[in-house]
């Protein structure tokens, strides 16, 4: 069991959410699951329940994207990063039991939290893509930062909302990446 109290609180609260959903998870439940007092909980999350729930969701989101980064760590070029990354993200979301359950039962409690994270996620992904795109010759007039921002926004948009695309179909994802993400970037 990790010694870090904050992590125990996040993990304990997540366990409660898995068992009983977001709405039914109280501060008392969270404190009990982590084996700490309410006072201790407030010390780590002075914003109370709202802050705690928000932090749990953000923590799980970060773990999701860290998993994606690992999945594409060996990709030889940006196109492969995008193809493998988008497919892995789509699979990850479809197969995420807790996420799917919450989307079905408590969308109004989960979706706003996730959507409010999106600029932060765009920032994370922009940093990630800036590094990869920096290694790549870009079309004249295209700056790395702006290209990374564009790719980050588009990738994030696709992950939760595939639209007309079948993101489990490798050939389609290749076509998507080439026509909509890379076409404007590569010379």
């Amino acid at each position, binding site marked *: 069991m990790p010694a870090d109290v904050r992590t125990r609180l996040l993990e304990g609260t997540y366990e409660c959410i898995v068992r009983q959903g977001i709405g039914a998870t109280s501060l008392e439940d969270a404190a009990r699951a982590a084996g700490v007092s309410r006072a201790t909980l407030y010390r780590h999350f002075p*914003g109370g329940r*709202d*802050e705690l729930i*928000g*932090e749990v969701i*953000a*923590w799980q989101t*970060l773990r999701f994207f860290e998993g994606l980064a690992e999945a594409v760590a060996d990709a030889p070029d940006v196109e492969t990063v995008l193809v493998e990354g988008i497919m892995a993200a789509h699979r990850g979301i479809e197969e995420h039991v807790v996420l799917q359950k919450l*989307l079905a039962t408590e*969308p*109004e*409690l989960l*979706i*706003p939290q*996730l*959507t*409010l*994270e*999106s*600029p*932060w996620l*765009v*920032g*994370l992904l*922009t940093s990630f893509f800036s590094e990869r795109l920096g290694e790549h010759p870009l*079309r004249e*007039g*295209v700056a790395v*930062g*702006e290209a990374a*921002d*564009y790719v980050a*926004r*588009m990738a*994030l*948009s*696709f992950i*939760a*909302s*595939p*639209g*007309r695309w079948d993101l489990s179909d490798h050939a389609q994802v290749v076509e998507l990446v*080439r*026509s*909509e993400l890379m*076409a*404007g*970037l590569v010379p």
Partner: protein
Amino acid sequence: MGTALVERAPFTETDASDAAGSLGSGAVPAGLPPSPPATGSRARVLDATGRRLARFGLSKTTLEDVAREARLSRATLYRLFPGGRDELFAAFVAREATRLFADLGRELGGARTLEDVAARFLTALSGHLADHGALATVLEHEPELVLPYVSFSGLDRMLALFAEFLEPFLVDRSARTFGRGLEPEDARRAGEWLGRLALSYMACPDGLPDLAPVPPGPRRDDAFSRMVLRPARITEDRARALVGRFVVPGLRHLVGKQLVHESPLQHSVPDQVQ
């Protein structure tokens, strides 16, 4: 932003058939809930609903509030909207959505090239949404009521509407620009693509500021969260830069693929026909 936009009805009273303009087909997507033009008392009630929502948001808007604002009796209101508050809000949303697409249709009708129509879509859609008083207030103070419509499956549905709406414009303007029209399916994909861009770039159109995300958790009052809850208009310059840089090359590639597919000879696609 938000509370200041009270008296305006930003979506103009427009006959949807006007929007056909230089298209030859209706601009308002079939996927929208029907909204016959409202007249008389019904229109007054919907206008009053918009004013009330812009000032107080949704939870604090009851049928009685709307009746008072519209200077009509509660009985009249219940006669017009027997389904009550739910029916009233559904009718309001349907009317605003219909007006939005009719306005967009007229604005895009005047765009000459593919780049024009794409850039104007980004600017017009973001501008209309950012300036809508009722939407601004509800989004800022009751985001849980709006955000499900622009994420996950809600976003899929919204993108399908944009794809359907933009298809005829993109087919027509790609023919003018490249000498060859996009295939309908490619045009729909392109319409979805532009929808994604418009909605994404409404949050921080000019790029994220250099806020290092030190704690991993964003909060409601965070600078980041504000970008989502207070969307902005994408300026014309920004829209043209985005479209010119990131979209047009991909569209040219799509049209080029069609030409190659149809003939064993290599075709090169002109940058601009006119």
